[in-house]
């Protein structure tokens, strides 16, 4: 299956490990990958700030970058949800509406692609530890994907998953919201951090790098030793027993 990787600007700038892990997992699952180099950003930061016309430049760039792709897969529910908004934004635009619809229809968030397109829930991962999962608002509500991360994590050997209290509450990231209204955002992320600590987990997992940088950055500022991992990194973790992949269930 031919898949184009959408790395997202946060992975490009800040967290290459999540992108690398995604690539390795998808290859292991038999996908043939390419990376359209002209991609940049989905346009969400400026779009959500109210700069509609300016944001369209970034959106058009993405539609062109992925024009010839069969599937587009990215490690962020939020960025993919933004792609899914394109048809609404370009509705009635004769040059771009169809391209917008086409991009929406072939775009999947990483876990969604594995479960819904590849039909796989066990990717053979192993990770010893106690973790909790933060569901991102954009992935669950705007993209409407509530299940696939859990389905995949349940199959990770050695991983103990603890439920996160108030998991449906936003972590306070919200893109530019986090920097434009830091006073409010910090209260939100503080409560999220408390909930994470309450679980007793050593690892915080999410499918959105924005939330992870926010919660992780706050945990680090408070000196709380919880490790953050993108779900791709978890699924790419085969540990010492990588050879026995798909073997012994623990």
């Amino acid at each position: 299956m031919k898949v184009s990787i959408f790395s997202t600007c946060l992975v490009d700038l800040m967290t290459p490990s999540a992108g690398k892990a995604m690539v390795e997992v998808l290859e292991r699952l038999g996908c043939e990958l390419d990376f359209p180099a002209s991609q940049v950003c989905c346009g969400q930061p400026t779009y959500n700030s109210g700069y509609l016309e300016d944001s369209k430049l970034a959106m058009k760039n993405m539609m062109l970058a992925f024009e010839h792709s069969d599937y587009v897969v990215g490690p962020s529910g939020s960025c993919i949800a933004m792609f899914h908004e394109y048809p609404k934004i370009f509705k009635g635009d004769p040059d771009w509406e169809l391209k917008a619809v086409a991009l929406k229809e072939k775009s999947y968030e990483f876990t969604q692609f594995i479960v819904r397109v590849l039909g796989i829930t066990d990717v053979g991962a192993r990770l010893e530890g106690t973790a909790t999962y933060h569901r991102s608002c954009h992935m669950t509500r705007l993209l409407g994907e509530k299940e696939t991360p859990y389905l995949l994590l349940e199959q990770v050997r050695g991983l103990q998953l603890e439920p996160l209290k108030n998991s449906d509450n936003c972590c306070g990231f919200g893109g530019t919201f986090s920097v434009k209204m830091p006073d409010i955002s910090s209260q939100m992320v503080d409560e999220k951090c408390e909930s994470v600590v309450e679980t007793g987990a050593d690892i915080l997992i999410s499918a959105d790098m924005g939330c992870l940088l926010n919660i992780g950055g706050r945990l680090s500022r408070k000196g709380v030793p919880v490790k953050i991992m993108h779900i791709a990194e978890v699924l790419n973790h085969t540990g010492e027993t990588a050879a026995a992949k798909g073997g012994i269930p623990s």
Partner: protein
Amino acid sequence: MSLKTDKREFGERTADGIGNTFMRSAVSSAQDSLKTRRLTAATALGDWEAWRLVGQTIRQHTLKNLDFYLNQLADNIEARGGHIYFAATKEEASSYIRDVVVSKQARKIVKSKSMVTEEIEMNKVLIEAGCDLIETDLGEYILQIDDWDPPSHIVAPALHKDRNQIKRVFTEKLGYTGDESPEKLARHARAVLRQKFLEADVGITGCNFAVANMGAINLVTNEGNGDLTAAIPKTQIAVMGMERIVPTMEEMEVLDNLLCRSAVGQKLTSYITVMGPKAPGESDGPDEFHLVVVDNGRSEILGSEFNEALQCIRCGACLNVCPIYRHIGGHAYGSIYPGPIGAVITPLLGGYDDYKELPFASSLCGACTDVCPVKIPLHEQLIMHRQNIVKEKRTGAADRFQMKAASRLLSSPSLFGKVLRLANPGSRMMSKHGRIVRGPGLIQGWVGVRDLNQPVKQADSFRTWMKERQGGTKQ
């Protein structure tokens, strides 16, 4: 009270809210319990999504034919011997009400909960006219006797107060001698207010929905004060926002179910009443019935890009799930309409001059849109507000500069390539031990609260790795 409840700047109001630890724990525990109750009641209805669609259909149909249904309502109210008055502005509405009260030579007024009467500043006008006006909803009554403290929630107006604060107010203002148990406080209010009901000349109520084909209004309550207000005084004045109307009881029934379940997690509240002028032969109820239909800016929303905001049935569910409301509380919005729906309609009714921050006070998490029983796309409307505010150049030069620069960068592969190359070395001056510690504008907004690693070096970046991997180093 008017739409505006606080003259201070948004930042000051927010800081006040964040610093109010009692209010915040009250709000978060209320949110947590209401969330579960709402969910249980919604689930009990069966296919909730299908019901939301019915609710949305009813509201959109009614708005699309609003003039028809208001006309039908007026005909039927008049046929039943009632009066209906159409007020274009808040001044028209409150002076009409004052004139009715004056013409009845009435002094004693009991009132049940109504947000729109706050919006038209009716209380102020009536009190200035020398009336003795009593709010009879328990929450509103608490606020009134506490020198008209503004409401902080559209369903539970006194949510920001705890029982000890309420006891203190009761002791000071009512000579209450009991303890702080909610039950005893409520009983005391019952006794005081019972007398007020019996003495009142005029009763003023809101209106959850007017029922067009009946010429009646529908009140949805729990305490019983709304019904007493409409039973005992000889004159009743009901006030409604012009959009709060349904064709028949069949649509009303659907919306009442959505409202009760969404607002308080009850299947139906204790008292749902469809009422109008007293009929011949009946002993109580209003001999004289006035319905005041208020526009006050709504006709400008109708048919506009914000049309769907008028679908609102004031259940408050969006407040109860909002993570922003959770931390800043209702007063920080500076409006009688707080929370997500408040952030949408307050700027529409009160203008961007006073309220341009509200649409930005959202992480766009979409919880409000998800929970709305009549499917108002609340977070999308917040983005629409942001677009208008940007178009009117109200966000400030610095914001405009940053966002224009960002959009150029985010749409240009070559420019972005340069940034990827320069981000790490460029951030060295702002960093210590690989971590950014200070920075201009938005960066400071981030690092003031959270740690942030320096951007990766180009050699270690995902793109470089991917390029090498695809360039034949594949294992």
